[in-house]
């Protein structure tokens, strides 16, 4: 997702620059689209160009240094390198060297290659939808690629002088990444899907209140479009499978069988469940009523962001990781941006709630003890209350531990930035269940693409949601069966 986003950002920045110069206004070009953003991950592309720092010395078990590979190449890489420098200054073990990759896919492929050559990195970042694949990953010799961090920590409270924080991780993230009773990987960049409201546009239309349900949203949007302040349409969000998964979880429904793949390996997908069909039907109704704008491509983070930033729509459902950016868009563009919970289905009877998105840090299996301890110490250091709070302030990802939330509260951060509190509040409000823990399933990325293709077909070609999702179900089931044939 990141490189696609980056490309879109270029386009968005170019568009923004052109639009703004055309308008003769001189504000806001900087924050146009060039963002530390995105989240939930998709794996769309594969440019295999690691940013070329430190690529000469990649020996993980030399005792002199360990490698940490992450899929960021922007200021988030700079931030991580700074934290690594702080870590190295206080640690007397091997030095941590951070290397950035273009995207999760090329990072993962590079890890497999390095693993087969006997010189793997110690820590690798991988995204939430690929959790099953990371757990199943084996090297050429058939050995597992990663090992559970909780097992490796082995009950210690501190490692090399760094306090262990895994018991303090916020519930939603801990639940997602706890599999078979153990925390498999270290949560890091984590977000949820929230709604953003252009309060100024709504006020101009004489509408107040915040929509909590689909019906609220629909009637508010109808009122907005009927008003004099109406713009092209009322709401948009990316056609990314993540939002469909969010909605299914909100309705307390499962995406895959075996308790969302948490009691046993998932063997059946449920893309045509009632919850899914209801959500897509609502989506299609919104579009048919001229209330929702489909930007025409799947996973279009850039186009939807731009519509909101250009005040073409008063509502946007998006990733909370861009909360800071979107709020700043409002400051720069002279409108008030308010974050709110993602609207839910008022008719859903089963309790549910929103799920997380983002990525975690995986510990490579088979490291020398000293290297492994350094890797574990670094992961915990990265999420120390101060660092986790700073990460939240810099990027907009949620503060990942309760201690970091307390720290931010004590600083008065949420009073000054109320929008930044929404994602955590929404996640905390979710009922704890396998629905809100999130789905674990093999071949998830390809299955996600089947789903978004189906939704695009429904929106563009005006098809019946239940019927088209039925086709998607068959296709996705085949993909899962094949995956389980190899790994099951």
């Amino acid at each position, binding site marked *: 997702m990141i490189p696609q986003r980056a*490309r879109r950002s270029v386009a968005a920045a170019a568009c*923004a620059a052109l639009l703004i110069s055309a308008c003769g206004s001189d504000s806001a070009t900087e924050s146009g689209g060039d963002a530390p953003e995105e989240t939930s991950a998709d794996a769309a592309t594969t440019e295999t160009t690691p940013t070329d720092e430190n690529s000469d010395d990649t020996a993980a078990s030399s005792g002199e240094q360990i490698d940490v590979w992450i899929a960021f190449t922007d200021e988030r890489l700079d931030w991580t390198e700074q934290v690594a420098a702080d870590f190295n200054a206080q640690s007397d073990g091997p030095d941590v060297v951070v290397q950035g990759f273009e995207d999760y896919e090329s990072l993962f492929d590079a890890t497999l290659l390095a693993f087969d050559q006997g010189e793997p990195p110690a820590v690798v970042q991988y995204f939430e939808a690929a959790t099953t694949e990371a757990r199943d990953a084996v090297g050429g010799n*058939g050995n597992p690629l990663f090992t559970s961090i909780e097992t490796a920590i082995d009950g210690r409270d501190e490692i090399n002088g760094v306090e262990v924080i895994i018991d303090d991780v916020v519930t939603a993230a801990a639940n997602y990444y706890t599999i078979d009773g153990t925390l498999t990987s270290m949560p890091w960049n984590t977000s949820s899907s929230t709604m953003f409201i252009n309060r100024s546009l709504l006020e101009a239309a004489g509408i107040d209140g915040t929509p909590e349900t689909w019906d609220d949203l629909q009637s508010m949007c109808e009122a907005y479009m009927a008003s004099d302040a109406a713009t092209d349409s009322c709401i948009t969000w990316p056609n990314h499978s993540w939002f469909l998964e969010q909605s299914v979880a909100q309705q307390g429904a499962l995406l895959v069988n075996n308790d969302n793949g948490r009691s046993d390996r998932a063997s059946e997908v449920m893309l045509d469940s009632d919850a899914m069909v209801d959500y897509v039907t609502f989506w299609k109704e919104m579009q048919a009523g001229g209330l929702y704008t489909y*930007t*025409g491509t*799947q996973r279009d983070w850039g186009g939807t962001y*731009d519509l909101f930033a250009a005040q073409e729509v008063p509502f946007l459902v998006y990733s909370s990781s861009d909360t800071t950016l979107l709020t700043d868009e409002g400051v720069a563009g002279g409108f008030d941006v308010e974050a709110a919970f993602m609207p839910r289905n008022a008719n859903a009877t089963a309790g549910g709630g929103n799920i997380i998105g983002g990525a975690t840090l995986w510990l490579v299996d088979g490291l020398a003890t000293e290297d492994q301890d350094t890797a574990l110490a670094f992961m915990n250091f990265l999420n120390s209350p101060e660092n986790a709070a700073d990460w939240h302030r810099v990027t907009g990802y949620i503060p990942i531990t309760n201690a970091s939330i307390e720290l931010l509260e004590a600083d008065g951060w949420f009073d000054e930035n109320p929008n930044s509190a929404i994602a955590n509040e929404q996640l905390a409000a979710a009922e704890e269940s396998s629905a809100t823990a999130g789905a674990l399933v093999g071949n998830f990325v390809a299955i996600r693409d089947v789903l978004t293709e189906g939704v695009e077909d429904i929106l*563009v070609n005006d098809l019946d949601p239940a019927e088209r999702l039925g086709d998607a179900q068959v296709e996705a089931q085949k993909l899962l069966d094949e995956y389980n044939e190899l790994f099951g």
Partner: protein
Amino acid sequence: MNVPLAIASVALVAVVAAVLLAQAAATFGRSRLVGALSGAILGLAGPLTVMLPLGFCTFEQAATTIDRWFGLSLIAGAGYVAFALGRTALDPAAQARRRRRGDDVAHGAFGGNPIIPWLLLAPTLIVLVVFLYWPALRTMRLSTQLARLGAPRRGERCVTNFTELIGPDIPWLVMSATAMAALLWTSIWFARRHLADSPIGPARQRVESITRWASTAATGAVLLAIAGIWTADYRAVFVVTMIISFGTVAGGISIALGIAYLAYQPIRGAGLYRTLLVWPYAISPPIAGLLFFVMFDANSGIIEHTLDSVFGLALPDYRTNAQLAQFVVVLASIWKTLGYNLLFYIAGLQTVPKDQMEAAMLDGAGSLQRFRYVVMPALSPITFFLIVTNLTYAFFETYGTIEYLTAGGPAGQTSVAMYEIIQTAIPGRDLGRGAAQSLVLFGGVVALTIWQFRSTGRRVSYGH
């Protein structure tokens, strides 16, 4: 495993090849026995080269009917290729033709020395083998597997990766289009035979032009038949590929020819102007996509902004309209290849013989007639070359443009074969299907190239 059928089909191919080659050997004035023997050997070798690596898996009990037919057509196809090679080897005329064209090592500087030419070729051959032939072989292997990118575990899929693309969804279309093509070709064949001994004149010209049209119609019928073979999903890919490729090639070449003809007129500053026209060639396909996106985007594009602020009009959204999306992709691709095509056409126009132009002028030919009957035939080698390079571009390099313009949408309506392959193999991590689809594309391009050389290539005049 259905062993009798496997043996019977291979043996049948060998026998047919032996009979046909014996017949061919006799017409070439060689011994029938030599022909029959080599035919039998080749007829065995061809099918076995294909089926041994597959382990004759299409004859397994688990294979579907389509798998079985697919296996049989592989055997027949391999047999035909082996037979054609044998026939060429036996044909003294073909050898003479090769010698005339100069691609025969028996003469020339190395005078039959068997080693030195290979040594000199070795660097090229090594590069070809390592970077082209070996990956191609790996692709073939992968296309028969259930393989995921980054997962060392593999499952065997026999030919399922291919046959699951085949419906055949619209059997009546396949049948009728095939029958149509066969009928047309038979009549063309008879007409040509008849023409060979008819006198040159308007009547013969008329028949010739009719056969040309009939040949084009036959090609269209074959394309229709192929379209009918696929499943509904893959047919969409096939149709989209055809629309975008032919749109890009036909549009690109005719627009380039028109602009080149205009730019070639002797006017002031033409040199500079012509140089500037080449610019789009220097821009990479993704950037072309990005530029057209920035212009045509219906939500925040430049054109939308201008239309909206000046005229209060809304630009239709190409990203949600299939025809518009295809049109914009074709437009961007044409623009991208325009510089390249112009370069060749402007160079080509300088080689159009002046005396022929003057003679035509003296004969009273108008500007359009001169263009049609003098300039276009003189440019035919360049047009032929450009068709080949443009088709290659349209098939293999539009990925970047499409990715930035439409991302294959709306609902797959701009997802050409190459885009589909990359989507399947890289983000979808499904290497087996990706490999199978890339072989299908490879086969299509090979067939198209052969057809091109046979049909268009024959009408190209190189002026000697």
